[in-house]
C-alpha cells in the first residue's frame, strides 16, 4: 500500500473533525442560549459570582498560547525546527497555566459549596442552578479539550524530535495546531458568556 501524503486531504479531514467538535459544543451553546433567554436576571446574578479576574487571565493565556502555536507552525515551515519545538512547549506550558488557573477557580467555587447536585446549589433559584450547571459542564468539557489538545501537541513535539514531523511533512503539527485554535475559539465564546454577559 503506498504511503498517503495527501496534505489537502488530511486538512479536510481535520476540519471535518473540528466541525464535529463545534457541533458538540453547539448543543451546549443552544442550551445556554435558551436558558439565558428564559432566566436573564438569574444569569446576571449568578454571573457576578464568577471571578472576572480568573476569566480574563485565562483568556489572555489561551490567546497567547494560540499565538505561540501559530508561530510554531510558521517557524517549522521556514525550517526552524528547534524554535518550533520551543514554541510548541511554550504553548503546552500555557495550557498548563490555564488548567491550574481553572483548578483554583473551580476549587474556590466548590469550596463555597457550589457544584452540581450540592445542597447549597439546590437552594438557589432555578435560573442560577441552571447557570452553574452549565458553567461546570461547559468549562469542564472545554477543560477536557485543553488536556487532549496539550497531549496532542506534546506528541507533535515528540514527532519533531524524532524527525517524523519536518519542515516538509508537518501536517500533523498543523492539524494539532488547528485543534488547539479550536480550543481557543470555544473559550473565546465561553468567556463573555459566563464572565461578562451578566
Amino acid at each position, binding site marked *: 500500500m503506498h504511503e498517503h501524503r*495527501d*496534505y489537502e486531504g488530511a*486538512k479536510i479531514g481535520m476540519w471535518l473533525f473540528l*466541525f464535529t467538535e463545534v457541533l458538540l459544543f453547539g448543543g451546549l451553546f*443552544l442550551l445556554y442560549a*435558551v436558558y439565558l433567554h428564559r432566566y436573564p436576571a438569574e444569569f446576571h446574578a449568578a454571573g457576578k459570582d464568577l471571578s472576572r479576574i480568573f476569566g480574563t487571565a485565562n483568556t489572555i493565556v489561551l490567546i497567547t498560547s494560540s499565538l505561540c502555536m501559530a508561530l510554531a507552525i*510558521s517557524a517549522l*515551515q521556514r525550517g526552524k525546527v528547534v524554535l518550533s519545538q520551543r514554541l510548541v512547549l511554550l504553548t503546552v506550558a500555557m495550557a498548563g497555566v490555564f488548567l491550574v488557573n481553572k483548578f483554583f477557580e473551580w476549587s474556590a467555587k466548590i469550596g463555597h459549596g457550589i457544584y452540581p447536585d450540592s445542597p447549597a446549589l439546590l437552594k438557589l433559584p432555578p435560573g442560577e442552578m441552571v447557570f452553574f450547571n452549565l458553567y461546570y459542564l461547559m468549562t469542564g468539557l472545554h477543560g477536557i479539550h485543553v488536556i487532549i489538545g496539550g497531549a496532542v501537541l506534546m506528541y507533535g513535539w515528540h514527532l519533531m524530535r524524532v524527525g517524523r514531523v519536518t519542515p516538509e511533512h508537518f501536517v500533523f503539527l498543523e492539524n494539532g495546531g488547528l485543534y488547539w485554535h479550536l480550543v481557543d475559539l470555544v473559550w473565546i465564546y465561553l468567556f463573555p458568556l459566563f464572565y*461578562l454577559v*451578566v
Partner: protein
Amino acid sequence: MTGHDIKYDTGPDAGPDAVHDAGHHAVPVRTNMLVWAALMLLTAITVGVTSFDFGFLNVVVALSVATTKAGLVILWFMHLRYEGRVIRLMVFTAFVILAIAIGLTFFDVAYR
C-alpha cells in the same frame, strides 16, 4: 449520460497529487503578532464595556466582539484565508447549520 466536465477547484485530475500548496504558505511573524495584538485589544474592549449597561444589547456587544475574535483566529491562526474554496465553503456550511439549529429552536422557546 455523458457528463459535461464541470471544472472543480481540484481540477479534473483530482488525484492525490493535485495538492495546491495553500497550506505551505508560511504566515509572516508580523501578521501573527498583529492578529494577537488585535485579539488582546478586543479582549480589553469586551471586558471594559461591561462597566456600561446597554441592557439587552450587552449580549449583542459581547457576542459581536467574540465573533470578531473568532473570525481573526479562524482566518489567520487557522489559515482559512489561505485555504481553497472547498474548505472555506465547508466551514461556512458547518457554522450555518449550527446557527440554524439554534435559530429554529427559538421558534419554540421564544413563543412559548
